[in-house]
């Protein structure tokens, strides 16, 4: 294998990392907003599954990719609305309600997605690029969307008035309330936004990055996103590169099956490949360990009111 070939391979793997990291990026962004507003939503996995299923179904019926993505967002948002109602209005435990979202999403997507299992997938618009050669234009576009989105999200959170309101609601809701910010409405808004982003992540997966619908399509990606939010210290820019890193880890077992790779190819050793599938999950635990050290050192922390329902006039945050 020559140096040039290795370079091409490296670029291919990196592009693959960007592709498979993008759904994760969307979900992570959404959860960062939701948690910054003080509501933890552990239902990402369920919302992504529903988004993936409904997005695929909408595309299948209409043939319109954009409509598919929008449908995924809408149904992800709908599920998040349920979570918002239960946790914000009914003040229920966010952990348990989030789990319920995941159960419900898993079940619903499984039941309603049955006609779509193994169906034809959206045909990619192939572009011919140097080095990468054949690339689906849709993948390129969605990567760019993700790349633009993360800095925008950072700017919104840290440099705008609504972003400040959002953070204040998550850090010190009673103070925010006293300044005339509608705590409950703000929280509703960003929980729903988070759901829409998770739905978008799911639909991106089933339509663009890994086309097709099967039961349990996301295979724990939603849960990884929950972990990434913590490691990203609720910062969209950190979320960006961590998502891509996990995209890389998810692709790696596939890439290493390439027999052209010297030394590290798993082509002749399928059981090693099986162990490699553990990597993203192991890495999630590992980065949480790393992150906890850093959090202690830099005193980074979760939004102060994360997980605490806001009740006007009651003691608490």
């Amino acid at each position, binding site marked *: 294998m020559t140096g040039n070939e290795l370079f091409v391979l490296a670029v291919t793997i990196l592009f693959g990392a960007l592709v498979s990291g993008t759904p994760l990026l969307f979900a992570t962004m959404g959860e960062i907003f939701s948690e910054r507003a003080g509501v933890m939503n552990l239902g990402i996995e369920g919302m992504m599954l529903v988004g993936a299923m409904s997005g695929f179904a909408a595309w299948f019926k209409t043939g319109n990719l954009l409509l598919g993505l929008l449908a995924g967002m809408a149904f992800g948002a709908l599920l998040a609305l349920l979570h918002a109602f239960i946790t914000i209005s009914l003040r*229920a435990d966010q952990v348990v309600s989030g789990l319920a979202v995941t159960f*419900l999403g898993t079940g*619903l997507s499984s039941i309603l997605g049955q006609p779509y299992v193994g169906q034809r997938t959206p045909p990619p618009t192939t572009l011919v690029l140097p080095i990468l050669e054949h690339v689906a234009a849709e993948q390129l576009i969605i990567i760019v969307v993700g790349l633009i989105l993360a800095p925008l999200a950072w700017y919104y959170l840290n440099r705008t008035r609504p972003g400040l309101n959002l953070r204040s609601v998550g850090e010190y809701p009673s103070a925010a309330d006293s300044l005339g910010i509608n705590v409950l409405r703000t929280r509703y808004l960003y929980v729903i936004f988070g759901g829409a982003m998770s739905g978008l992540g799911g639909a991106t997966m089933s339509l663009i990055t890994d086309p097709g619908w099967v039961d349990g399509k996301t295979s724990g990606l939603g849960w990884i996103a929950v972990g990434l939010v913590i490691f990203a210290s609720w910062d969209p820019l950190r979320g960006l590169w961590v998502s891509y890193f996990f995209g890389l880890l998810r692709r790696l077992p596939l890439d290493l099956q390439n027999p052209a790779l010297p030394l590290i190819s798993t082509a002749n050793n399928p059981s090693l490949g099986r162990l490699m599938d553990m990597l993203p*999950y192991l890495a999630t635990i590992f980065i949480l360990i790393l992150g906890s050290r850093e959090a202690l050192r830099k005193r980074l922390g979760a939004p102060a009111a994360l997980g605490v329902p806001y009740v006007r006039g009651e003691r608490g945050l």
Partner: protein
Amino acid sequence: MNLLSRRIRIEARLDNPGWIGVVSSILGIVLALIVGGFVLRAAGANDPIGTYQEIFKEGFGTPADWQAGITALLANTDCPKGSLCFGPLSDTLVKASPILLTALACIIAFRMKLWNIGADGQMFMGAWAATGVAVFLLPPTTDRPVMLAAMALAGILAGLLYGAIPGFLKARLNINEIITTLMLNYIAYKWMEYFVVVGPWSIGDFESTGKFPAAASWPRLTELSDRIPVLSGLTVHPGIFLGIVAAILLAWILYRSRWGYEIRVIGNNPKAARYAGISLRRNIILVMGLSGALAGLAGMNEVAALRELNGRFQRGFGFTGVIIAWLARLNPLAAILVAFLFGGLIVGTQLIQPQGIASMLQGVILFVVVGTELLFHYRVRVEKIEQVTAAPEASP
């Protein structure tokens, strides 16, 4: 009646009546069935009520079946043709035993507000370790009680270690246990796949360890069928007693022992616990360990019932445990009853299309149960705006 002159007020509740738990659990099940009916309709099932009847029949049998069974039992004859007798009940008990144990695993952890969502992975590791002992460590000629005890011990130990890891990470580094236990679930699935599907434990292309030696399997009721013919074909095994004994022990620990008191104090108010000199770190690791051990025992229980470990070892019992724990209001004894109901749900939905209906029903149940939590802490009053006379109407 002028509705506009009334308003809904939510006020703090000082008492804590016990009926709310029962009502909300029942409400949860009823609402889940209603919502589930609509979803089934949307999915193309024309007769949701018929589907539910089918689930109930598959899961528990019909009164006619039970009657036929009892008649046959008394007359010491075979189960009459066309009747299921105790078959569904037996299948349900078989499924209820592992999920009762995973539910107990969740209960003990949730009592301390430790969100162990990893009972599934801990169960997988328990099943893996028990299989290792049964197939690769002890000779097949080992006595059945010794073999089963060794398997149970291996399952408990594996689960304990696998649960203690996230406990340790939580206690020492304050790492969110929800994420770690979940990630460990996926790692356990892959671990099992590695050994059983492609790796060292699979026999040929069967993705299985092959049948266990007889000593490594639970005795089944059907083994008595040469003396009591009606028991023929019943796979129910003593594993259910493991769960029941564990539930009683756990109830004793929680409500009668000093340790259980500490667990409940930490769960209700960690600050108060700290001031009272209760060690948070130690208890986090201990409780996660115990929780994992119970789930690991569930894994052993399941492989000894399946009598082989294969690539189709069922996922999701750990998550069902979460639902049962909540529906039982974190009461170990109530969990026995709820686990039985859910065993029926699992058995009943096994053959029914579309799949995923069990998961959806569980999600809705959990929503309602957690949504009505509000009623524990607040009283919902509808009152007229001018007058203060209030009608205590509850609404969810």
